[in-house]
């Protein structure tokens, strides 16, 4: 699953714009990934500041 490093986030909304299941909630200065993330990683790719990260897979 992905997570957001808020210290890097600019709250620009580009991750929200590409999210297929529409599960990112962005208020003025507050961002959350809600239930229903499909782990498609589009948000990881497009983030201009690389503020969205993938959790390392545990073996």
């Amino acid at each position, binding site marked *: 699953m992905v997570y957001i490093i808020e210290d890097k986030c*600019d709250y*620009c*909304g*580009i991750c*929200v*714009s*590409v*999210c*297929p299941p*529409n599960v990112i*909630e*962005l*208020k*003025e200065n507050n961002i959350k990934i809600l239930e229903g993330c499909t782990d498609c990683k*589009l948000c990881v*790719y*497009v*983030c*201009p*500041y*690389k503020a969205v990260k993938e959790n390392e897979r545990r073996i």
Partner: protein
Amino acid sequence: MKEEYDVIIVGGGPGGTTAAYYAASGGAKVLLLEKKRDIGFPVRCAEGVGEAGLKEFLNPDPKWAVNKINTYRLIAPDGNIVTVKNKEAGYILNRRVFDYMLAERASEMGAEILTRMYVNGIIINDRTVSGVRCEYLGKKFSIRSNIVIGADGVESRVGRWCGIKTNIKLRDIETCVQATISSKKIESDKIDFYFGKKIAPGGYVWVFPKGKNLANVGVGIAGIYTKNPERKSPLDYLNEFLNKHYPDASILTRLAGGVPCAEGLKRIVADGLMLVGDAAHQANPVTGGGIVNAMKAGRIAGKVAAEAVLKQDFSEKMLREYPKQWNNTVGEINKKFYRMKKVIFGFSDKSLNAIAKSFNETSPENLTIKDIFVGALKKHPPLVIDALKVFK
């Protein structure tokens, strides 16, 4: 605030405030909700607009139109410069002031506007949109309306709450970082665009001067170039560019953002619903310019909404007048730009260098933007026809 309105508009950008202005002037009871503290701030934009489009709405006022420029320079990967002295000027706005002024105009026309109102859902009754759910300082409540206009920008969720897939495809999103810089090296009478796979793959770097020693400098790269985990981010590209071209720069603002550079959504209305601006993917797919397009869409949507209120008919069939008028005007132009975009941003650095060279050898004087598109696309005759049509 009342419990019920004719029209609720989600989002206070140029699309939303223009829709509010025209809906209110047509007699509708309008409420506009904006999640941010301020209308127009923070700005996520390079703030450039064309003269003709702007003047359809307003006469440029130095309070918010801070620079007027006729000289455009297109810079090839090898550094060759093609200079265009365009008849139509480009204006650089101060959007913080501009967006605020648009909101004031809408308010003077009778629209109510509230900031810090986050819309978190849509009320749907009998498959018809009939209001919004929102949050204000932690308090949740609902407001009813006959029409909801989603003008909630690139991050739009309104359409998706109503079953319209508006999420932007990776190939259609430009991911951007911009710095407003202070530097002695800025030439305040020229707008610059830099192209090349190493400079901005699938996009470009822009330098939009806001005045003496001040400019918006940014980079946009296409989403498809972001998949590699070792990739450079737009921020890396921008830093490289600034180090090379403006090493003395102070950075007064830094921002990130996304622009839909898409063909345009097929469906932008439903029963009781209209989508406007970036929410409907209406920015120009080549340039990413979306301010005036959002205003043009807002104007049509606002008028159609007022008309629907007079007739008390909020059905999709009634509201389809909006996409009809949009498709016949900017919508059609954007489709042509989208076809051109695929070729233009596919050029290799070698081709770009060759194109620039040929312009400089054959016709260095009196080049227009139209000449540039026609010349660059000459190996693709159908696109040349598109270019001739969009730059009539």
